[in-house]
C-alpha cells in the first residue's frame, strides 16, 4: 500500500521555544557531553596508573591553552546538569510544578550554572 503524504502535526520548528522545552533539551545535551567528559576522566585516570612518564605525556596533551575552553564548557555542563537534575528530582516529588514555580526554578538553574562556571573557571581552569 502506498503511503499517503498526510500533513504532520506542528513540530519543533513551529513551536515558540519556551524555558521548559529549552532547558529540557539542554539537560540532554549537557548530559551527553558529560558522558564524553567521563571518557576524558577515564583517560586521565589510566594515564596516572601508567606511571609518571605516561602521565606527563597525557598531561601535556590535556593542558593545551585552547583546551581551557573545553574545560569551561564541561564545567558549565556539569553545573547545569547538576542544578537542573535537582529540579527534576523535586518534580519527581510532585513539587514545583506550577507555571510560576518551574519558570522561577528554571531561571535559578541558569543563573546558578553561569555563576558556578565562572567561579570554577577562575579558581581552577585559568
Amino acid at each position, binding site marked *: 500500500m502506498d503511503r499517503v503524504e498526510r500533513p504532520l502535526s506542528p513540530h519543533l520548528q513551529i513551536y515558540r521555544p519556551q524555558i521548559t522545552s529549552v532547558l529540557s533539551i539542554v539537560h*540532554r545535551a549537557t*548530559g*551527553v557531553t*558529560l*558522558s564524553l567528559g*567521563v*571518557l576524558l*576522566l*577515564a583517560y586521565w*585516570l*589510566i594515564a*596516572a*596508573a601508567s606511571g*609518571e612518564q605516561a*602521565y*606527563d605525556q597525557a*598531561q601535556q596533551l590535556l*593542558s593545551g591553552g585552547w583546551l581551557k575552553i573545553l574545560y569551561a564548557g564541561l564545567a558549565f555542563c*556539569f553545573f547545569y546538569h*547538576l542544578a537542573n*537534575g*535537582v529540579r*527534576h*528530582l523535586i518534580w*519527581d516529588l510532585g513539587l514545583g510544578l506550577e507555571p510560576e514555580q518551574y519558570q522561577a526554578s528554571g531561571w535559578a538553574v541558569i543563573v546558578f550554572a553561569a555563576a558556578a562556571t565562572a567561579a*570554577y573557571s577562575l*579558581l*581552577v581552569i585559568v
Partner: protein
Amino acid sequence: MSVVSPLNRVLGLGSAKDGVEHWWAQRLTAVALLPLGLWLVAASIGLDDFGYASVVEWMQAPMNSVLLLLTMLALTYHSALGVQMVIEDYVGAKGLKIALLMLITFAHLAVAVTGVFAILKVAFGAAA
C-alpha cells in the same frame, strides 16, 4: 471503562510489578552523584597542581580511592542510562538503534572497568 485487558481481568494478575527499574536506577544514581560530583569538583579545586606526584598522592589516600571508585561507577551507570534514553528517543532506524545501544553499553562498561582498574592500581601501587 477499565484499561485492563479482558485476559488480565480474568487472570486477575494486575500489573507485572516491574518496569520502573530504568527510571529508578536513573534517580538513584542521580542522587548519589550530587555529593560525589560536588566532591570531585571540590577536590579539583583543593589540589595544589595536576602534576604526577600530587595527583597520585591524592588518589592514594584511602578515602579518595573509595570515593573515586563510587563516583566512577555512579557516573558510568548514570551516563549509560541517559545515553540509552537519548538513542531510544531520537534514533528511528531499528537496526541502527540496536547497534548503537549495544555499542554504548559496551563503551560504558569499558570505561567503568578502565576507571576502576586505574584507581585500584594507583591505590595499591607504591607511593609516588
